[in-house]
């Protein structure tokens, strides 16, 4: 199995962030429209597309991004990444490696990954930063085509996100692995939640967004969490719904990294729309940096 390599290099040309190299091979394609948002903001938007709108069993896609000093680049998709049924034990994989220069900002804001039944999918994203790089990663996946009843029916989903500082120092290492062969099946582990998302906001350019998100999530969740009013055990007997109702949307925030330079938000939701709304709302503060508000 050969890796299909894609490559994008963003550098400052006459003071503006510019894609100076862009290369991709089937089934991957990058589109870099010139005008996204106002001309005052200095940001390039890169759309990653796959032919057929998804990833077929055994596809292996690898891309490299270099975001030069002081540049701003956004990597996004136009619709969810569908991972189709796997043939045999073949695993589809996507690998992304990015170098983010000094004072640069890289924003990875895709739509969710949706693994169809029996699909096997593995994704690895490695980000190399320097002390004043900034980075936003949204990484999320759904239970499958859950509207038509296909819930947590895939074979394997693995997603790794790693951030390394200079000298290969680990700043953030995270791997989520869901596989059907585990002693506990995935659907049971997820209760009725259909979407799992991670939003990572790192670096000096995004301090205001971090503070806002932490405050918002705290306010949102403090209302949802409470000591159940009816004491344990009686709920099942009385069959009353109100004491068993779980929050449809759960989020929590954590600071990480040296001097708490990063904030990571973990989300579990019963609907995809609620996560889109959340992302739109929480990342709206980035509009001045990107020209357009993410997920709008």
């Amino acid at each position: 199995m050969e890796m299909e390599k894609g490559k994008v290099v963003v550098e400052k040309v006459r003071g503006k962030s510019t894609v100076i190299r862009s290369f991709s091979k089937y089934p991957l394609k990058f589109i870099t429209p010139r005008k996204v948002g106002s001309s005052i903001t200095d940001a390039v938007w890169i759309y990653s597309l796959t032919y057929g709108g998804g990833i077929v069993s055994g596809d292996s896609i690898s891309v490299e991004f270099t975001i030069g000093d002081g540049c701003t680049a956004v990597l996004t998709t136009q619709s969810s990444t569908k991972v189709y049924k796997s043939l045999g034990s073949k695993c589809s994989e996507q690998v992304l490696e990015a170098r983010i220069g000094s004072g640069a900002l890289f924003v990875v804001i895709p739509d969710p990954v949706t693994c169809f039944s029996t699909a096997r999918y593995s994704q690895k994203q490695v980000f190399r930063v320097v002390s004043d790089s900034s980075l936003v990663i949204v990484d999320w996946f759904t239970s499958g085509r859950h509207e038509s009843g296909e819930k947590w029916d895939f074979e394997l989903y693995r997603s790794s996100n790693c951030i390394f500082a200079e000298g290969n120092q680990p700043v953030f290492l995270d791997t989520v692995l869901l596989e059907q062969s585990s002693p506990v099946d995935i659907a049971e582990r997820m209760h009725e939640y259909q979407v799992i998302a991670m939003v990572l906001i790192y670096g000096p350019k995004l301090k205001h967004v971090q503070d806002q998100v932490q405050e918002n999530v705290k306010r949102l969740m403090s209302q949802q969490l409470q000591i159940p009013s009816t004491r344990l055990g009686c709920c099942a007997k009385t069959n009353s719904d109100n004491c068993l109702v779980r929050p449809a949307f759960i989020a929590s925030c954590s600071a990480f990294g040296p001097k708490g330079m990063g904030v990571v938000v973990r989300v579990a939701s019963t609907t995809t729309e609620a996560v889109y709304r959340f992302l739109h709302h929480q990342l709206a503060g980035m509009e001045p940096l990107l020209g357009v508000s993410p997920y709008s």
Partner: protein
Amino acid sequence: MPLPASPIFTIHAHFSKKKKKKKKISQKIDSLEGGLLVCFVMDQDLVETEKRRKREINIDPGLQWSQWQLLDSILPTGGFAHSFGLEAAIQARLVSGPDDLQNFVIHLLENTGSLLLPFVYSATMNPTLDNCQKLDRILDATLSNEVGRKASVSQGSSLMRVAASVFTELPSLKSMRDVCIGSGVVSFHHAPVFGIICGLLGMDSGTSQRAYIFMTMRDVISAATRLNLVGPLGAAVLQHRVASVAESMVKKWMDRSVEDACQTAPLLDTIQGCHTYLFSRLFCS
């Protein structure tokens, strides 16, 4: 995963109850067949116990005293201040009774196995200062959940302090602690600290990984009794019932490299992160 009640276990449980009940039961099974069955089951048990007894002869008795003390819940490492996200899960109505609790414990053990056993394993196999520092740094970047990370640091540093004072036959433990404190860059995460102590005590890596899962199970079930989810007897029954699932988790996740450490219960991680949002709470995590 529903656990089938073992017939052997059921009969034993009846017998261990008070005399009155014993009489009642023995009347019930007064027929010849019933009596034979009980005798047969007891004989089977004796054979098994005998086999086990013979197997365990080679264990170093000195090691056992240390092992038991390391796993004893009276060792003051502050494990009882943590609920591993259970308290938040109750307030999010994800856990509301004994059945939910059993599932929660199983999910937690699987996540502990996939995420932390690689660190216990590496530390037990190579209990050196270098490895301690390396594992600590990697785990600090891996535990991105602030609640879980702080819990790991507070339990790990108490365990290191206690172990350095208790296991005086291992002077390297104390010197390792002193160097780490001096360097200021080691946070003393729990899993590698535990592995290092096991390694220095001469415990094999299988035992140390199993012991780590055991402690996690012990502490979360203990938290459940204090959160009024189960009574003390129910907790003991649950602990024994979950043991076979826990063993399958250990088998699945043991002896893996640190690069393979992963989360297998993302929902649990999200919930645990909510702990600081709880208006009233008993536990630190």
